[in-house]
């Protein structure tokens, strides 16, 4: 029954989308300055029915209605309630329905919040957005339908993968999707702007909020994914330059560049063509990322169960999108004159874009190169963390310097007085860095530069905060917080990298491992039977000889029966000053256990700084509304 309801709703939405496109095209030709009421009504119905179709699927999961193949494959009666709901979007078909929901919601919101803008522009945006929606609806109906039914109805579902039952993992996809898919609206708006000729400051104003929303959610989504990886995947790392992670990073670089360029477009009415290119690129990168992740073309820890037919559909969609964007762009773009003085804020924003594009291209090449090499020459190589770190990290240093001094410059032209303050703060940064270097441990030249640049950015941000408070202005605060967050993030990642202790060794029960300041005692092994798994718990006593503190750490090996999986639960003690991390895995056919121990200073501050970056963005959204 649910299957029929679901499919009916989806078909209804498809019809409504087509009607919207038709009505909008007709409305374009009339001379009236307002958009016809019908379009608003159709859009509202479209949004309602799309949401209903999603609720239908959720109900299927809550009720464990195994007549739906999707529920059968991804759920189980024993799953906790919260995770049953999260299971709705934790699979390919369900997430596609969520994508469509976001496409539709953003389409409707853009329509109703942009009353003051040009009618033709809004109508074209609506038409193109709904074309995108129709494309996804076809994909859903023809290839990845969450409402496909199965008969006879199975008694129990298959989907009890324990790794997926985690709160962070439940919210990570929706957050990321608002970022990934929310950028569709300014893709459509950019196309509409080219076609209708509605550009400049007003165009910037119309898409500003949407760019910020997608940026905030994309940033938050990536951070939550990292936090989840750190706490759940048992390796002590939080970023692996894994292809799926990289796929989420690509749009992020582009949206960050876009966000900054929009400021210039709004303030100085220049960089319009570049903004259009960025708007088009962001959603193209999102869909490219989706293609890479879901088609099975890549080998990664994160990949969904892959299916080549999906790949063909997404590739087709991507091709149509890219070609239409290119054709419209080349037909309609106009040459611009740009006036950029060296010592002006707009040039520094241009520099930001320069770096963002560089990072974007690096990550893109890193992902695509092995694929191209394999297809063209049959040689398989790996492009992993060393490549990305070597190319990107050295350039983060000049970026941070620019981030600190850029905002100091005024629009159009600036004086040299600014240089004095910069010099003072650089000296301050060098002094603090030397302090750390001298008292805590030597590190390489590059790390020195990283710390100096990061501290420089941090000091600048603090001085800006003080200035803002004194002058009682608030509008600078979001930028300061985000830039400060970035500086702190680089600083704490640097500290973590330099001063972490990592050991990998094998131990039997009863044995002791002695390290520089620590002693780890493998005291005993316990087993425990839980509802859906059996746990083998290792009791470890950790003695810190520097401060004579003793801690107990209890990593687990979990053996699940349904489906049969093995997971390794790390024992993580998080404190404000450091994290202690211990994982254990058994060495096959032996009494030995492989132990990985890590002491990570200021680990939690990495999360706090990263969240600060997102916080700045959210604050700016709220501030504007006032």
């Amino acid at each position, binding site marked *: 029954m649910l299957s029929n309801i679901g499919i009916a709703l989806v078909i209804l939405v498809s019809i409504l989308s087509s009607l919207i496109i038709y009505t909008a095209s007709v409305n374009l030709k009339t001379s009236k300055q307002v958009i016809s009421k019908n379009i608003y009504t159709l859009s509202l119905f479209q949004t309602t029915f799309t949401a209903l179709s999603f609720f239908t699927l959720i109900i299927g999961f809550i009720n464990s209605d195994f007549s739906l193949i999707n529920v059968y494959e991804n759920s189980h009666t024993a799953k906790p309630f919260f995770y049953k709901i999260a299971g709705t979007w934790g699979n390919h078909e369900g997430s596609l329905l969520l994508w469509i929901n976001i496409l539709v919601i953003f389409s409707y919101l853009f329509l109703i919040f942009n009353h003051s803008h040009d009618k033709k522009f809004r109508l074209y945006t609506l038409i193109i957005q709904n074309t995108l929606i129709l494309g996804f609806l076809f994909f859903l109906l023809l290839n990845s339908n969450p409402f496909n039914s199965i008969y006879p109805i199975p008694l129990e579902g298959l989907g009890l993968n324990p790794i997926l039952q985690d709160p962070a993992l439940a919210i990570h996809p929706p957050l990321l999707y608002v970022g990934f898919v929310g950028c569709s609206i300014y893709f459509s708006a950019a196309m509409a702007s080219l076609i209708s000729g509605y550009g400049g400051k007003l165009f910037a104003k119309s898409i500003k909020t949407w760019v910020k929303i997608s940026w905030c959610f994309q940033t938050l989504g990536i951070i939550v994914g990292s936090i989840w990886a750190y706490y759940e995947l048992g*390796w002590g*790392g939080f970023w*692996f330059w*894994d*292809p799926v992670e990289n796929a989420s990073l690509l749009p992020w670089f582009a949206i960050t560049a876009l966000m900054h360029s929009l400021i210039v477009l709004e303030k100085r009415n220049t960089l319009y063509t570049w903004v259009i290119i960025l708007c088009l690129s962001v959603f193209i990168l999102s869909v490219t990322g989706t293609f890479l992740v879901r088609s099975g073309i890549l*080998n*990664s*820890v*994160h*990949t969904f169960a892959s299916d080549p037919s999906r790949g063909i559909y997404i590739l087709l969609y991507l091709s149509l999108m890219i070609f239409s964007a290119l054709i419209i762009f080349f037909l309609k773009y106009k040459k611009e004159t*740009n*006036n*950029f*003085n*060296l010592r002006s804020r707009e*040039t520094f924003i*241009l*520099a930001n874009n*320069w770096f963002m*594009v*560089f990072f974007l*291209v*690096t990550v893109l*090449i*890193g992902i695509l*190169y092995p694929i191209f*090499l394999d297809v063209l*020459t049959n*040689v*398989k*190589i*790996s*492009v*992993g*963390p*060393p*490549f990305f*770190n*070597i*190319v990107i*990290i*050295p*350039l983060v*240093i*000049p970026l941070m310097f620019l981030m600190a001094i850029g905002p100091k410059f005024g629009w159009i032209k600036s004086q040299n007085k600014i240089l004095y303050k910069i010099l003072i703060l650089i000296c301050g940064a060098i002094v603090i860095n030397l302090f750390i270097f001298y008292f805590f441990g030597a590190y*390489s*030249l*590059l790390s020195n*530069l990283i710390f100096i640049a990061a501290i420089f950015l941090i000091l600048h941000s603090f001085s800006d905060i003080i200035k803002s408070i004194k002058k009682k202005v608030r509008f600078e605060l979001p930028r300061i917080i985000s830039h400060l967050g970035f500086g702190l993030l680089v600083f704490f990642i640097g500290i973590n990298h330099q001063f972490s202790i*990592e050991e*990998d060794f094998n131990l039997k029960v009863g044995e002791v491992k002695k390290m520089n300041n620590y002693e780890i005692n493998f005291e005993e092994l316990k087993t425990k039977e839980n509802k859906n798994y059996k746990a083998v718990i290792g009791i470890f006593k950790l003695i810190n000889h520097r401060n004579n503190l003793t801690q107990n750490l209890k990593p687990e090996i979990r053996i699940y029966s349904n489906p049969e999986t093995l997971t*390794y639960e790390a024992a993580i003690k998080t404190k404000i000053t450091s994290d202690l991390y211990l994982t254990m*895995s058994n*060495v*096959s056919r032996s009494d030995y256990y*492989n132990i990985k121990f890590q002491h990570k200073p200021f680990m939690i501050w990495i999360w706090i700084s990263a969240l600060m970056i997102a916080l700045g963005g959210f604050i700016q959204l709220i501030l504007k509304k006032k």
Partner: protein
Amino acid sequence: MKIKIFFFISYILIATSAYTSENQNNLLEVYKNLRCLVCQGQSIADSNSDFAATIKLVVQDQFKEGKTEDEIYKFLTSKYGEWIVYQPSFSKNNFLLWFLPYAVLIFGGFIIFAIVRKTKYNRVN
């Protein structure tokens, strides 16, 4: 202006080579740079598989014998192919991989340089 460009490029070269020569002779760094052949996208450091355990033993032995990081990678590459090492080699095959990002960086720099210079030119006239 030219001096600034020179400084920037030499900075990139120095910083990058400084980064690559860091972390020599660290066992865990070698583990992190090796790929587990029987896992889905995990390094030898992160993997709990049997294969990873064996590779760790071999790497430890070679370290004790005094082999450098590069020699270990060369040995494993000769047995398992380039796929097993996460850092792509600086070879003819991978030239584009290493070259393109920097090409884009330099190209982008030129564009900004050109824009700023034209503005100065227009302002003067």
